[in-house]
């Protein structure tokens, strides 16, 4: 397929288009995502307790932690799928989801404004969330047609290029139900990438997959990281986090307990809760122990 060799046509914004892609911010001058004291409660349950986090340009941040630690809620807050109720989330310098309410704190921003702030965010879900009544191509091109208002020929070309990028150009006309889980997730990644996001958020992208299919999805994500995509990944794949992440954040009970390079988190940690978490992970994944006989138990 010769589409592969051709450089992608840039999405040319129409005049006054609110979805137009702004110039990327130079270097490290400003973090792509900045969370300050973010809190969130579901009723009486406080799931996020004052989270501070910064994600710089081209950085890959992995969020790890036990279930119920708030890592998914935190990630979803960055796409405003959860309305955080304390603190601030800035996406490329803009406050996400809220506007000042003349002197009385703040109120939820209008939907168009929310979309404007998060237009450079791509989201990938644990359950893929593809639209089952559309083909793989239809899934990828839908937002290009309806949101970016590309012509059907442009949208098709761009969607095919994106499917090719995740290795699924040959499945363009197939419905999601006919694809394996790994293939579905790759289509979902292509769908998000088609909008040319600056930041990609992944919410446990491999947790719903058969173990054999995890690799193909992680491979696509590794390629993205190598190309310099800014990524925040909630994951249980410690191997992926160790290899790809620039920074690993360990959450427990709604708080950042430890944060550092993979080396610091996986090898030199002194935090007891993190040690326990990692030990559990190792125990669960160990299926062969050479010293079984020698073990006293």
């Amino acid at each position, binding site marked *: 397929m010769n589409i592969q060799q051709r450089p992608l046509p840039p999405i040319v914004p129409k005049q006054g288009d609110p*979805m137009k892609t702004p110039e990327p911010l130079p270097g490290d001058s400003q973090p792509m995502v900045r969370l300050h004291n973010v809190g969130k409660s579901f009723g009486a349950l406080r799931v996020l307790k004052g989270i501070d986090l910064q994600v710089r340009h081209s950085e890959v941040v992995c969020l790890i932690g036990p279930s119920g630690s708030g890592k998914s809620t935190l990630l979803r807050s960055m*796409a405003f*799928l959860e309305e955080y109720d304390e603190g601030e989330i800035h996406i490329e310098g803009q406050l996400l989801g809220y506007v000042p309410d003349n002197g009385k704190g703040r109120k939820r921003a209008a*939907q168009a404004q929310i*979309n404007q702030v*998060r*237009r450079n*965010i*791509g*989201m990938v*879900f644990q*359950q893929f*969330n*593809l*639209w*089952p*009544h*559309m083909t793989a191509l239809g899934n990828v091109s*839908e*937002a290009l047609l*309806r*949101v970016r208002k590309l012509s059907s020929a442009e949208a098709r070309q761009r969607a095919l290029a994106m499917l090719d990028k995740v290795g699924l150009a040959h499945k363009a006309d*197939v*419905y999601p*139900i*006919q694809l394996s889980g790994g293939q579905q997730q790759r289509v*979902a990644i292509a*769908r*998000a990438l088609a*909008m040319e996001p600056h930041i990609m958020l992944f919410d446990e992208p491999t947790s719903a997959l058969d173990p054999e299919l995890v690799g193909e999805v992680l491979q696509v994500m590794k390629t993205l990281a190598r190309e310099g995509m800014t990524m925040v990944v909630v994951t249980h794949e410690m191997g992926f986090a160790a290899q790809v992440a620039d920074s690993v954040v360990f959450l427990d009970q709604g708080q950042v307990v430890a944060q550092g390079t993979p080396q610091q988190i996986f090898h030199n940690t002194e935090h007891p809760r993190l040690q326990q978490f990692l030990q559990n992970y190792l125990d669960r994944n160990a299926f062969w122990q050479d010293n079984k006989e020698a073990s006293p138990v």
Partner: protein
Amino acid sequence: MIFDYRVITEHLDDIAQGFTVTLGTWSAGVVLGLFLGLLIAVAQLFGNNLIRAPLRAFIEVIRSTPFLVQLFLVYYGGPSFGLSLDPVPAGILGLGIYGSVYFAEIFRTGFESVARGQLEAADCLGITRWQCILRIQLPQMLVIILPALVNLVTILCKETAVLSIITIPELTMVMTGIGSQTFAFVETLLVLCIGYLLLVEFCSRLGMYLETRVGRFMSRQPQ
């Protein structure tokens, strides 16, 4: 039993006309009901309480009163509200309103059947709520609600018989009229039943055909 087919052949023109009127009021009523029902369902799901509360009351009132009474109210009571309609428009309006609340309930369950995650994905991509309804929710829910819709449409077909009481010359009125003139009740009522049977049968077959069409994406087999 003696079946005097001449009663039927002699009145064939009247019968055909009655059949056409039934078909016409039925289809117009269904279209109106579908349209109103969809509006009600969307307003209920996405509107604020100011819209929702009166709609809820409207649904309850229509669902808990007989169609016959509603029809009387529209046709004979209408002029008191400044709504003077000819029998046929009044009948279509009555049938549409009566059907709309049931259609609305079907649509509501349909909207709820589409997984939340799909809407979140659309939301993240900047797809608006209206685009989401038209492009993502409606096409999918149609597959799920189609049997229920067809069911209601066939029920409305038989409800058109009630329209005879506001002097609409539809099939039931024509056939009972012929019956009382000729005393050939068996012949006329039998043909009347066959008339409705034909309409309902046509409707269910159309529904089954549509079910196989719209459900294609659910099949694991490549097409």
